[in-house]
């Protein structure tokens, strides 16, 4: 009987354990920037939590985190430690972001460094019991998005689209990628910043045989509510997102 040897990254080995008591993982995605991924992730997490679900929110837009700005999170102290890092409760949601550590400084990173951040955060964050883990992701199809697809054993992508030609081109590419990797019934599309009753996005969802959860209307006032959870909860966008949350529950 000889000696066997193995070497590698221990962080990947523990991710399964960290997510063991997380019932559903919902990455909010869109290859297009500025379609409302971050705002929608935050409002969705708040709306799910208001309905009694235990919710975590993870900002994986590593080189440009902004979810803390939406939530008005306090970056002046680090999250508590308890055999890992415990995401602070903000508006009832367990919120984790690299911004706790980078502050408002630039965080320019090469792809393999982004991958390292994702591994580190997934390995040390203690989510505990969650009904939903909502994940905000960056635009493009780079390391963060590939990591979400590779490291989470199961997930239900929520694709955000707006009815502009540039968004539709980007979302089509993303849906092609996602439908290869995830069962169609676990993928859902939301139309954001809807201004009229165009069916472009609903039709796109149908074409790819994925779910369509409805429209979130353009809400002129929502930008002014950014940073203030109570004001966000009073916004019209929150009302629309709450309907989406209902359908997810």
């Amino acid at each position, binding site marked *: 009987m000889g000696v066997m*040897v193995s*070497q590698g*990254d221990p962080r990947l*080995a523990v991710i399964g354990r960290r997510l063991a008591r997380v019932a559903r993982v919902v990455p909010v995605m869109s290859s297009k920037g500025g379609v409302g991924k971050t705002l929608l992730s935050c409002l969705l997490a708040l709306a799910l939590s208001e309905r009694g679900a235990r919710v975590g929110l993870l900002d994986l837009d590593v080189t440009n985190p902004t979810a803390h700005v939406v939530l008005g999170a306090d970056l002046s102290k680090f999250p508590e430690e308890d055999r890992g890092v415990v995401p602070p409760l903000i508006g009832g949601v367990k919120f984790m972001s690299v911004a706790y550590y980078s502050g408002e400084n630039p965080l320019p990173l090469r792809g393999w460094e982004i991958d390292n951040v994702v591994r580190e955060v997934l390995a040390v964050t203690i989510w505990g019991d969650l009904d939903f883990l909502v994940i905000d992701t960056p635009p493009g199809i780079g390391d963060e998005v590939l990591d979400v697809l590779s490291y989470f054993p199961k997930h239900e992508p929520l694709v955000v689209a707006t009815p502009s030609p540039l968004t539709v081109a980007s979302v089509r590419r993303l849906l092609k990628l996602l439908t290869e990797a995830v069962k169609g019934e676990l993928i859902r599309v939301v139309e954001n910043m809807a201004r009229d009753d165009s069916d472009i996005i609903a039709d796109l969802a149908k074409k790819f045989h994925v779910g369509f959860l409805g429209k979130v209307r353009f809400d002129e006032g929502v930008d002014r509510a950014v940073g203030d959870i109570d004001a966000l909860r009073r916004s019209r966008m929150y009302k629309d997102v709450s309907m989406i949350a209902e359908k997810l529950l």
Partner: protein
Amino acid sequence: MGAARVVHEWALAEAIADYVFKSAPSAKRVRVTVRLGELQAVDEGILKFALREIMKSEGIACEVVLKREDCVLKCRRCGHEWLLKEVEFGEEVREAIHFVPEVVHSYLKCPKCGSRDFEVIKGRGVWVEEVSWE
């Protein structure tokens, strides 16, 4: 950092333990060599303690060898190489880097050309160099 039972090093010890369990699912005696990069400044005593506790609770005899690795940085723009030892950080910054080593890019620039496009070419964080069992 902080008291042994609560700090986040415990989570890294669990990661190493899970790595060992996956590598050698039925081994009762293992030896694990872990490389600890200077950048993350993991507390060796706590990591060792936590790893032994976890292994003991699973009924496994585990020999733990920790190896420190100095941190070397290299600028991708101008090629300059330097040592983390030459850099001075405040306590808050060191703590931030302890949790997520990559945030070093938020606090450090190449001392020669000022670019933040540098690489940690050695000594980042925790890596299993060897698990051996019979």
